[in-house]
């Protein structure tokens, strides 16, 4: 269960704004997270609290393959990213590194910045405590669920 404040963004949030390339000379989670979203929302890092949720439009995480992007997001305390859709490399990277993500076009459309959501990540039910609305996220394919339940790709491979 995730319970947190929403940071809302639009379509095509690219990995260059999630973590600008000028900071990619390190791979440390804490270091990277200091600059997360810096180029699209410089106040994000001051505002974000442990357990918060990013909600965005379509094609979230497009652009570079840098795994530093989901790593940086996780490092800020963000517990979940909900988007209308994800770029494919970001999608894999999030699953592999254990950043929770959900595809939910309805939430992406209706949720406002600052809303408070209660999300059951297992059932995919998203409750908006501000508007009173409920949304349902698209379920993951079984194989992806297996990777998530193993705790990421490396554990999945090791358990196989």
């Amino acid at each position: 269960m995730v319970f947190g404040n929403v940071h809302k963004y639009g379509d095509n949030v690219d990995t260059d704004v999630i973590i600008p390339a000028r900071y990619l000379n390190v791979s440390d989670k804490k270091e990277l997270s200091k600059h997360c979203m810096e180029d699209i929302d410089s106040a994000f890092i001051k505002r974000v609290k442990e357990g918060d949720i990013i909600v965005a439009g379509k094609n979230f995480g497009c652009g570079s393959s840098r795994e530093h992007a989901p790593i940086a997001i996780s490092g800020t305390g963000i517990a979940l990213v909900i988007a209308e859709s994800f770029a494919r490399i970001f999608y894999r990277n999030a699953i592999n590194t254990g950043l929770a993500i959900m595809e939910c076009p309805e939430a992406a459309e209706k949720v406002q910045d600052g809303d408070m959501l209660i999300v059951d990540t297992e059932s995919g039910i998203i409750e908006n405590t501000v508007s009173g609305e409920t949304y349902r996220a698209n379920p993951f394919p079984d194989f992806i669920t297996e990777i998530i339940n193993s705790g990421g790709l490396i554990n999945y491979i090791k358990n196989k």
Partner: protein
Amino acid sequence: MTLTQQILAKKAGKDKVSGGELVTVPVDICLANDITAPVSINVFEKAGFDEVYDKEKIVFVLDHFTPNKDIKSAEQCRRVREFSKKHGIVNLFEGGKAGIEHALLPEIGLVGAGDIVIGADSHTCTYGAVSSFSTGMGSTDLAAAMKQGETWLRVPDAIKVEITGEMRESVSGKDVILYLLGMIGVDGARYMSLEFCGEGIKSLSMDDRFTIANMAVEAGAKNGIFIFDELTEEYLKESGNSHRFEFAEPDDADYKSVVKIDLAEVKEQIAFPNLPSNVFTAEEAAEKEIKIDQVVIGSCTNGRISDLRIAASVMKGKTVKDGVRCIIIPATPKVYSQCIEEGLLKIFTDAGALVSPPTCGPCLGGHMGVLAKGERAVATTNRNFVGRMGDTGSEVYLASPYTAAKAAISGIVGV
């Protein structure tokens, strides 16, 4: 089946695969660079993996923040070097052996038709130009493949890009892919293959094809791929690669959709900030009289020899506009050397441009040409996102080598 599906079916040992199906396939090349390899190495070591699956199939190219731009970058390169030494990695490229990864690998014959290449770099899709299946992944996927020698893939559906006609003289592969991006948008091919077929591809040089496949990811595509023909055959032969693949000509019914491009209708294109799909013709752009501060001609998209020949032909005997910094970046040591032999470097330096060693540097705002607030660049690179080449208040306009070279002389965006 689509071209991509034919490769995946063969590699997965199946007669047929369809879109949406999950397959596990052996990997011919695992690629990473100085930014992504250290993350893969961290994952690999943390997982307790003891050895790589094949020390000849792992390729590390130190090309992004090199020549080392600062101490942290130097440390990242050292980490890759030490890991390579420990595991006997044969294909580590750095210093005078390093070129921009996606120009280097095909040039030295590391990629062939029908191969499966995964790279911890989104522009790994470039090798579809030589009819391979190549796609970008993250560092954890790469670390897993470095150990397992295989990876899982969701078989993509595809968009067929049917190309007819011939390009105008001032138009090249870059204009074609920007034109396509303008048509389908930055998520127009999300999770799908872009497959380039049709009579018109005969008139596209290999360098044009590399540029086009390179930016397939800018439409969200998993991969871009060209059908194998005589030109591919000739290129692979020259690069010393013996891998071939016999494709059956796909039916239109195999595709989710078909997009048609008549090359004769494609004019010089420029993608305005902040999306590669935000395209105007160079003519429309020129009317806006937007002044620029910098031109970058290079990158994995457009740093090959034919790109630099085109740029040199425009700049010969001319002078870079006062107040404009023009940076030329040959993509590989071979391209650099060709530029010397053909006298291109002299043309560039005589025109007042400066020539950098091979590096990805400015494309991602790393070094060797970072922009200050309010500055504008015309670049032959592949992305113009907010802050891509420097300050968030700077702007990048994407164009072909021809259009970029023209901009260096005129000092404005457009032709």
